[in-house]
């Protein structure tokens, strides 16, 4: 009896331990069909509010139950990797097809090909040019993701035009003029902001690219790009190895040291953009399509300020080089892939949703609901301001809808270009931005020639090179005492130690400069939806 009493807790403990060892449930087979399916979608969303009307409207319109799960962008990769490693696969994930992780998922058999669904839903297939699909076939000849190409309103510098006007200045066209504008903002405080005033705040304070791309670009260095070598134009080199980088970083370093840039750069993890929203900043880095959002927020924060904003997409540097948004021909942003958790029924259901978004749901996904998110003005839909929507109908927040339509086809960008008022961008703004892009592409400036990354060496080692480049830039900008020449030499040595030579060889083997120049030239062609 005593022995039994002693053994009982041991048995219970053993059962608990054994249950912890149970394997994860296996994914269901592809042959299973069900009438009622729920598609689990794991996406990226910094401001996702699950309690919104858009999900219901999509479900109602497409006839598919969707379980949208959004994770803030800094945590997304980690969350997705943990779920995939644990066997807890969502049906649909967001993943950049040029990353090592995508290849690993492919090799592990975690993704399913979508060719049969593209054949079944030709609207989805025809939404992207044929060459885009062909460029995205994997080694086995199958397609494993719906691409997401970049848009035609790239990141620029968003600034307060009302402050510029109060200072009696013209819009800066050079780095020197831009710096003068920031200095006068700091010294004269045209907005009467007082202590919280910060002349320039990068959109994201923890991101080197978003903070410095225009300034480095004006010195002839496109951060993290692969460009033709000045010494050998037929050879691609890592742009951050160019000596001009030192000059660019020195310029930014002086900006930071002189109090013209947010002092919490690289230390804070919150969005610098929110300081721009609060009306305390003269300049941030931003996308022109969100101008009305930002302006509305600033006007709410400072109702008496008569705030107004504009964009600068190009600044000329000391050597006459004009900066501009970097373009990757056939750029691949975060695409959409189906995992092995998606049964045939669920995969088909997801494609029904995408198909619906491109057809009957197009108006809902682009302009929204008349009377709530937009008004018809002379027959053209004009989006209502985000704050107005949040005040009157918060469940129709446009940010929530944007997260649900991340499979934008090129036609989406054509629509943007043809209906600028829909995105509340003036014809003038659109013309300006497109002009900057066109000029840069015609002169073959600001092109990242690393288009094809499908190589083991690139996939394994490129990340380390990027990390080193970001660390070097941050270290130099934030520490005025560091000898920039000595640090640059150490940086080059560190790149070499991290297989720069091997990556360079692989990049050059896969990416032909002439071919990519032709792709870049085709980008601005009105017949080609590639943006």
């Amino acid at each position, binding site marked *: 009896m*005593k*022995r039994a009493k*002693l053994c009982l*807790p041991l048995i219970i*403990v053993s059962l*608990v*331990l054994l249950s*912890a*060892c149970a*394997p994860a449930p296996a994914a269901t087979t592809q042959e299973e069909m069900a009438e009622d399916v729920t598609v689990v979608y794991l996406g990226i969303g910094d401001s996702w509010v699950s309690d919104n009307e858009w999900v219901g409207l999509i479900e109602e319109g497409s006839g598919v139950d969707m379980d949208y799960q959004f994770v803030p962008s800094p945590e997304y*990769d*980690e969350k997705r*990797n*943990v779920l*995939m*490693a*644990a*066997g807890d696969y969502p049906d649909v994930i967001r993943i950049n097809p040029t990353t*090592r*992780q995508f290849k*690993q998922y492919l*090799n*592990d*058999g*975690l993704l399913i090909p979508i060719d049969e669904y593209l054949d079944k839903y030709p609207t989805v297939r025809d939404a992207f040019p044929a060459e885009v699909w062909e460029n995205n076939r994997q080694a086995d000849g199958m397609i494993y993701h719906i691409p997401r190409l970049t848009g035609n309103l790239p990141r620029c510098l968003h600034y307060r035009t009302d402050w510029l006007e109060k200072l009696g200045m013209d819009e800066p066209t050079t780095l020197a003029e831009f710096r003068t504008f920031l200095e006068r903002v700091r010294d004269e405080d045209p907005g009467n902001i007082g202590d919280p005033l910060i002349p320039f705040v990068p959109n994201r304070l*923890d991101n*080197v690219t978003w903070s410095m791309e225009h300034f480095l670009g004006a010195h002839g260095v496109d951060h993290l790009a692969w460009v033709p070598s000045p010494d050998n134009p037929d050879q691609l080199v890592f742009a951050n190895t160019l000596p001009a980088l030192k000059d660019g970083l020195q310029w930014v370093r002086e900006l930071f040291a002189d109090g013209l840039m947010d*002092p*919490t*750069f*690289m*230390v*804070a993890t919150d969005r610098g953009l929110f300081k721009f929203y609060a009306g305390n900043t003269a300049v941030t880095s931003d996308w022109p399509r969100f101008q009305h959002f930002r302006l509305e927020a600033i006007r709410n924060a400072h109702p008496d300020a008569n705030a107004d904003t504009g964009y600068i997409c190009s600044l000329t540097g000391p050597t006459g080089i004009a900066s501009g948004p970097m373009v990757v021909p056939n750029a691949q942003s975060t695409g959409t892939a189906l995992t*092995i958790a998606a049964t045939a029924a669920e995969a088909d259901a997801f494609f029904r949703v995408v198909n619906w978004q491109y057809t009957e749901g197009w108006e809902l996904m682009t302009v929204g609901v008349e009377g709530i998110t937009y008004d018809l003005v002379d027959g053209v839909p004009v989006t209502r301001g985000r704050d107005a929507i949040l005040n009157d109908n918060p469940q129709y927040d446009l940010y929530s809808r944007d997260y649900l339509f991340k499979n934008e086809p090129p036609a989406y960008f054509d629509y943007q270009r043809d209906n600028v008022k829909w995105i509340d961008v003036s014809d003038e703004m659109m013309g300006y931005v497109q002009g900057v892009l066109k000029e840069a592409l015609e002169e073959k400036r600001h092109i990242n020639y690393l288009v094809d990354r499908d190589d083991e060496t690139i996939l394994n080692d490129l*990340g*380390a090179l990027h*990390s080193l480049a*970001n*660390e070097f830039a*941050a*270290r130099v*900008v*934030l*520490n005025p*005492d560091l000898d920039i020449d000595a640090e640059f030499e150490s940086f080059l040595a*560190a790149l070499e*130690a*991290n297989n720069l030579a091997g990556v360079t060889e692989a990049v050059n083997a896969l990416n032909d400069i002439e071919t990519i120049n032709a792709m870049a030239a085709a980008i601005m062609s009105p017949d080609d939806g590639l943006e």
Partner: protein
Amino acid sequence: MATAGTDVQPGVSESSTTGHLGPDSRRRHLRRELGRAWKYRELYLLLLPAILFFVIFRYIPMGGLVMGFQNYSPVRGFLGSPWVGFQHFETLFALPKFLEVFRNTVIISLYKLFIGFPVPIIFALLLNEVRHLLFKRAIQTVTYFPHFLSWVVYGGIMVLFIGPGGAVPEGLEAIGLKMPALLVNPKYFRTILVITNIMKEFGWAAIVYLAAIASIDPSIYEAAMVDGANRLQQARYITLPGLRGIMGIVFILSMGNILEAGFEQVFVMYNPAVYAVGDILDTYIYRIGLVDGRFSLATAVGLFRSVIAAIMIVMTNYILKRADQPTLW
């Protein structure tokens, strides 16, 4: 056959005289032990959750270490993933980044150990001399309270205070002094890590020393006072020697943590500008394991670290034993 002169019990075979028990004796021995366990069953029950914790969260996961020797695929699992032997360890040791993070980890840990080790001892000695009970307890509470804050909170407070635009640099600037950017300058970052760690933990760490001091026989102090020893002499000749045992044990355990420089603290406080001096093994494991999804490589790093920690504990215990100092075993 019993050997002459041996005290052989009935029922005990010859082999029992050389230390081996016969079946009957073994059963009796087992019954005796189980009886003793039953007698102290409440104590064992109290111990059970801790044992379960270690079994579930420390011993069972050891099975996952096999990932370090495989090209692990979550789909194929442990049994289906291909075996690659020491390939990941070879890759690891060849990575320039690994050498950097290993060096950072050891340096930061050694800083914390040798600078941080005496602080709670000195604090315990000082606090022991305080006679005003209320004041003593207040100080104790205030100093060990930060231990209960997570580094997310405490590190965030530190960043707010000493980071760019923080209260400390702004205050110094107001009186005409300029404070260097401590959190983004590689020259100061390790020092900041060590100091903030000491500030957070010294109060809690002093508790074991205070307990050890409390266990010293008061009559020794009385005798010392009679002999004319002042407080400093009492601390030097009575208190410190009395703490030797616990100091040795804490030191051994600290050596076992030599490759744990404090993931949470570093993760909250570091940034790309100081990766070269602040990036440690744990933050590296986090990035390659969770963010990059390279589970096998991350497991190899973790296993390497654990092996080194075990070797350090054994070595330190051995050295202290040879020096006739109190040890773990």
